[in-house]
């Protein structure tokens, strides 16, 4: 298989997106262009409100661009984040069953439930309504749930931010095991976990996306733009 000639896994072509608020809305993305090759994990960095989550929602198919297009040549997960995807009044188990069913996994629903329970390790809370969960428990469940399906690309929107050390270790291990099979597109403000899991970076700045083959360069560019001395440089 020739990596060079293989078409990019995810391709954004001049993507524009704006939101219509009650007081008019500005453009969030102004002509975003990038190509993500197969098997490369990408960290998305940028200021709050730079459009990181918007871009993930577009890639996840929850929303569509006002102009331009996003071409996906792979199976992409839903954006795993703090908020969406779970109905608060239902238990963790019911939510997992629902997601398994819509993905056609009715036959091996027990396997999926076991896997999620194994990964999430939230114990008896699995049978409690989601709105009683702490944010850490929610993201454990969300991460475990998405890992129960074999997606080519997983989208994570700050899902690891609220996790404790053991959860971060687990997430890291799960993705290390899947290197070569699946990759990750990740939004996070924690530089450490980005560096652990991603190779390349996209810096969203003023509505444009700037691609960096090396994630470190993306983080440095982002930190320079906000005038912040990154810790990694100090350590040198």
């Amino acid at each position, binding site marked *: 298989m020739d990596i060079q000639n293989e078409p990019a896994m995810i391709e954004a072509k001049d993507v524009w997106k704006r939101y219509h608020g009650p007081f008019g809305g500005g453009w969030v993305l102004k002509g975003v262009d990038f190509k993500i090759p197969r098997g490369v994990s990408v960290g998305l960095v940028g200021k709050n409100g730079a459009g990181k989550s918007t871009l993930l929602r577009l890639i996840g198919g929850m929303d569509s661009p006002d102009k331009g297009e996003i071409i996906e040549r792979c199976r992409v997960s839903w954006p795993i984040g703090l908020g969406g995807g779970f*109905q608060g009044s239902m238990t963790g188990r019911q939510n997992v069953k629902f997601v398994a069913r819509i993905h056609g996994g009715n036959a091996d629903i027990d396997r999926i439930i076991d896997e999620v329970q194994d990964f999430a390790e939230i114990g008896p809370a699995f049978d409690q309504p989601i709105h009683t969960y702490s944010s850490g428990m929610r993201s454990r469940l969300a991460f475990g749930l998405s890992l129960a399906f074999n*997606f080519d690309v997983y989208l994570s929107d700050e899902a690891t931010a609220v996790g404790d050390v053991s959860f971060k270790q687990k997430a890291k291990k799960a993705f290390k095991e899947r290197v070569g099979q699946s990759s990750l597109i990740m939004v996070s403000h924690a530089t450490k976990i980005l560096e652990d899991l991603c190779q390349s970076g996209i810096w969203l700045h003023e509505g444009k996306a700037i691609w960096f083959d090396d994630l470190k360069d993306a983080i440095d560019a982002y930190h320079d733009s906000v005038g912040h001395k990154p810790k990694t440089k100090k350590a040198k």
Partner: protein
Amino acid sequence: MKDVNPATAVRSPYKVAWHVWTALFMREFVSRMTTDRFAPVWLFLQPILHVVILVAVRDFIGKGRLIPGAEFIPWLVIGITTFIMFRTLWIQGMNAIQANKALFAYRQVHPADTVLVRCAMEAKLQAFVLMIMVFMFTGLGFDMLPDAPLEAVEVLLAMSLLGLGMGLTTSVMVTFFPESSKIVNLISFPLYLLSGVMIPIQFMPHGIQEYLLYNPLLHAVELIRAEFFSSYHAVQGVSLWYVYQWAICTVLLGLALHVKFKVRMVAR
């Protein structure tokens, strides 16, 4: 090579839609039955109480109890139950999108799916309620068994389709203008009176009847009574085709609105 997981292997669009519908159906059913400890009882008790109270009120007033060709209480019960069936489908369908908002994170789930599934489930539940009513009042010694059961089912089907159509249409409206749900609730009460559920329309002057007949609910309510009691003299000029015309138009309008505004509804 990577082994193919049946859970994420490529499925045909029809299969995906079917999987979403089954999943939604089970979820809706569980949430309808477990909203509180009283929910499953309330589901059946509410229409029964509704009927009992209205029957009591009408019995107390005692005016206009002469219904041409039918006993009064069965006449009232079947009318109310059919009307409630329509209204429940409409209101539940209207609120389906709001209630399932969290699920649009999964790209398979469309807003229209939630309305369709909810109405299908509600129609089944209401059919069950109707059967309970029929058996209950038959047990109490009223003549409640339908004389033309298959034709009665046909009318109920038209009524459910109309409820679905109104649900589909107003669900889009409510998503963009949440205030409109108040208006919908407001007009459902006069509809109750205008559909001849409580007051026999036969006694009204012909000039008024002509205008009342624009309301498809009146047609359906009168028709189901005619199917239940073969000797009943329904209002002149009712037709099932008119109900179906309304049903088909509202369903198509609702689906068209869902296609048009799908992205904006999900993005909210």
